[in-house]
Structures are given as C-alpha cells and as structure tokens.
C-alpha cells in the first residue's frame, strides 16, 4: 500500500514538474536577447505562478503560435508596431488586446485562475516596472 502511495505521489510530482520551465533564468538569458530593432516592438510574456503547473497552453499572437505558457517561464516576441491580440486556451480562450509602438517593450503576465474542469490561463498587460521585476526569476521557454 505504501509503495502504491509513493508511486502515485512520485507520478503526481513528475507530472507537475514536467509543466515547469527548465531553461536559463531571465537574469542569465538576458545577455543573449538581441537588442530590439529600431522598427520593431517587443512583448515579453511570462508566468510567475506554479499554480496549475500541469497546464502549458499554446500562446497565440494574432493567431500565430509563438510557444507555450509554462509555469515560471518566459518568452518574448518581436513584432512590427501595430495592434495585437494575445490568446491562450485551456477549456476556454482568454484574450488580451494591446497596441505595440515602435521600439516599445511591453510585459504580459500569464495568470492562472480556477476553471471548471481545468484552470484558465489568462494574459494581463502589466506596467513595465512590475513586469521587468517579476520576470527576473522566470526561465526561458521560447522556441
């Protein structure tokens, strides 16, 4: 009986850990991020919480898959100035619409909330000062 419980606990922890980001931290990876091109803007997307670690929905920007939202992970997306819709889907689709200007950096935090069957991951536009601070401990999960 004990062996079964241990096995189940191990399987559960493994499943949860597999949803966590495992790349280099932002602080480490920052030097590898190319400088922003003058005619472009940049969106940082990050997820600080370990809540719902097993959830790693695809992040779409204007319908294009740019990677997965993993617990404690981050990625960035360089784009032309314009209007963008960021969406993540679990049992429901959550969207954020925002404007990106030339040479502008913006931070989008991916929050997790309770769902009916599974949690919801929803994007939230945050102040740059907050985003730049919160992203520091997140690990790179980009393609």
């Amino acid at each position: 009986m004990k062996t079964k419980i241990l096995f189940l606990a191990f399987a559960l922890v493994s499943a949860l850990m597999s949803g966590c980001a495992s790349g280099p931290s932002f602080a480490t990876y920052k030097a590898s991020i190319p400088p922003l091109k003058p005619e472009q803007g940049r969106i940082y997307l990050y997820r600080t919480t370990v809540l719902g670690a097993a959830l790693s929905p695809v992040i779409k920007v204007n319908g294009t898959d740019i990677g997965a939202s993993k617990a404690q992970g981050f990625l960035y997306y360089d784009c032309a100035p314009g209007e963008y819709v960021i969406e993540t889907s679990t049992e429901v689709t959550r969207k954020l619409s925002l404007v990106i200007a030339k040479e502008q950096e913006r931070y989008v935090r991916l929050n997790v909330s309770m769902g009916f069957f599974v949690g919801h991951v929803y994007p939230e536009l945050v102040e740059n000062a907050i985003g730049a601070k919160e992203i520091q401990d997140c690990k790179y999960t980009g393609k």
Partner: protein
Amino acid sequence: MEPFYLRASSGQTGNMSPHTVVSGIVANSPAEQHRIGRRTPAFLAGSFVFLLLSIGCAFDVVQVKQLPVTLTATLPAPKAFLLDAGAKVTIGTGFAVNLRANTTWQEIGTTQFGEVYSTKDQVLTVEASNVYEAALVVRDGQVTGFYLLIEKKFCPATQPVALATTPQ
C-alpha cells in the same frame, strides 16, 4: 446498440434478467432494486445540472459592453490634463478600472461620447473574461467610459465619474 450493464454489487455474474435493470444499473435483490430505483432520478437530475453547468462554463462568462463609436483623430492642438486624485470607474463586469493620481493624459481624438485621452503614466485596460487596452473617454470633466483601442468600440461606465484635474 448493446445495452450497458453496470453491476451495483458483486456476487452475481452471467446473464442478467431485464427486470433487474434500472436505468442501466443492475440490482441483485428487490431491496437493492428499490434503493437504486429511488436514487436514480436524483442521480440523473444531478448529472443533468452538472452537464448544464459545464456547458455554461465553457463559454465566456462576462463580456465587456461594446458600443459602436466613431473616433475623430485630434486636432493640431490636443488638450491635456493632470489627474490630481485617483478615481475608480466601474463598467459592470465586476472589474473596476483605477485611474492613478498624478498621471498626465493627452487628447488623441473625439467621439460622440466625449474626448478620448491616453497616458504613458499607467497601463489602462478594461477587463471581463478578456482584457482590452483602452483610452479614457471624458465629457464635461466626467469619465463616460473607455475607448477600446483595438476593437474601436466604446465601453460605457456604469455611471459617470467626476475627475479632479488640472489643465496642462
């Protein structure tokens, strides 16, 4: 389609008599048949409610009200103001929009609902099930709602909110 039999208890295998089946559940004794027979309607009703709830949850629960609007881009000399005191604007979604004190707002256009202002001093979004970046719409010193920058729609405030401002 083959009928589905679910055994209510152990101890009997093989062919099942049709009269022992109650809504797909097989009872082994008259007492058990009676017990299952009494519980099945409640079980079915519960399942039905559960199904309804789960279907309901699969959709967006709260939507931001969006009205058609025409934005006319500003003018050579746009107005600007400093917001002296913070303000809280509700839009009927359960998520209030907080306007921060000491932020400077610049006119970007006008609509039939008022003048439209944006700021670089705070992120301004309106939120329900989804989140929309927005600009502030002000008429006669009162917030009337928000202009959704991407959707090009107007989201009205639940009630106008007076602002304490200093012209810039």
